[in-house]
């Protein structure tokens, strides 16, 4: 089956609806920040016990 895809815009603008997060960009930033924190903690943990 080929041809142009039927766009359905209903799914484009669903907000995260979470306390403190009004846009998905802020959720992604939070997840990325959490990841950076975990990497830093891993490095600190390794240094403390090396």
């Amino acid at each position: 089956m080929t041809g142009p895809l039927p766009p359905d815009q209903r799914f484009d603008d669903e907000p995260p609806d979470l306390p403190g997060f009004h846009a998905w960009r802020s959720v992604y930033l939070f997840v990325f920040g959490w990841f950076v924190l975990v990497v830093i903690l891993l490095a600190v943990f390794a240094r403390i016990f090396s």
Partner: protein
Amino acid sequence: MNVADWVVFLGTLGGIAAYGSWRTRQIRSLNTYLKGRRSTGWVTIGLSVMATQASAITFLSIPGQASRVASDSCRIIFGLPLALIIVSGVFLPMYRRFGVYTAYEFLGRRFDWKTRLLGAGLFLLQRGFAAGVTIYAPAIILSTMLGWRLDLIIVFIGFLVIVYTVTGGSEAVSLTQKLQIAVIFVGMVTAFIVLLIELPAGLGFDGAAHIAGALGKLQAVDLSIDPSRRYTLWTGLLGGLFLALSYFGTDQSQVQRYLGGDSLRESRLGLMFMRS
């Protein structure tokens, strides 16, 4: 094996599969069969995605590999958060917008049937091989522990999985995986507590961590930019990003999990929850 072992073993193997089949016995439509009832919440999606990537192989091979080559191989997951953000922001809305059942259906609509066939064929081939190993490895353990015939255990496990998957479809898989990951978490916490209790007298967590550190087992982050080093933060970020993108973005075993979400929001939150 003592009574507790048998309860966990039979409950996980038989009880969860029976529960999945029973809860999804009403499913009749193709849409529900392939995508679930589209009422799955983000917690179930997140746990299900987590359980899908954590097969028995994960728990049999990763600890052994980690103890042999320290935490080198774990660095490959550094690219995972970035990949999930891309999947959540780009892949997921695209799949839902066009209402596809599979990632390969999207390929067919975007390109042509040959591309769809190639993607689906490669997935089935790859998954077929992977499923063989995923069943074979724990079957060896069970065969050794119980003294049962290996080939019969392989057939039994395969049959059990086929029964509840075929009867309940995507929803049965999500339901059973939620329970399976609960068993896995309880097992992990129990193992950690037992590990702490069984440490030699006077050693303690602090002493054990120092020994692990001295043996180089805690070097999870390597910032080296030497291209000859195989596992660094940078190779983990780059290699792990594309590895995770292909797995979470295009592998139907994962795509099916988040396509069953009640809404785009639930699917996205499920992926972010799984990452966190």
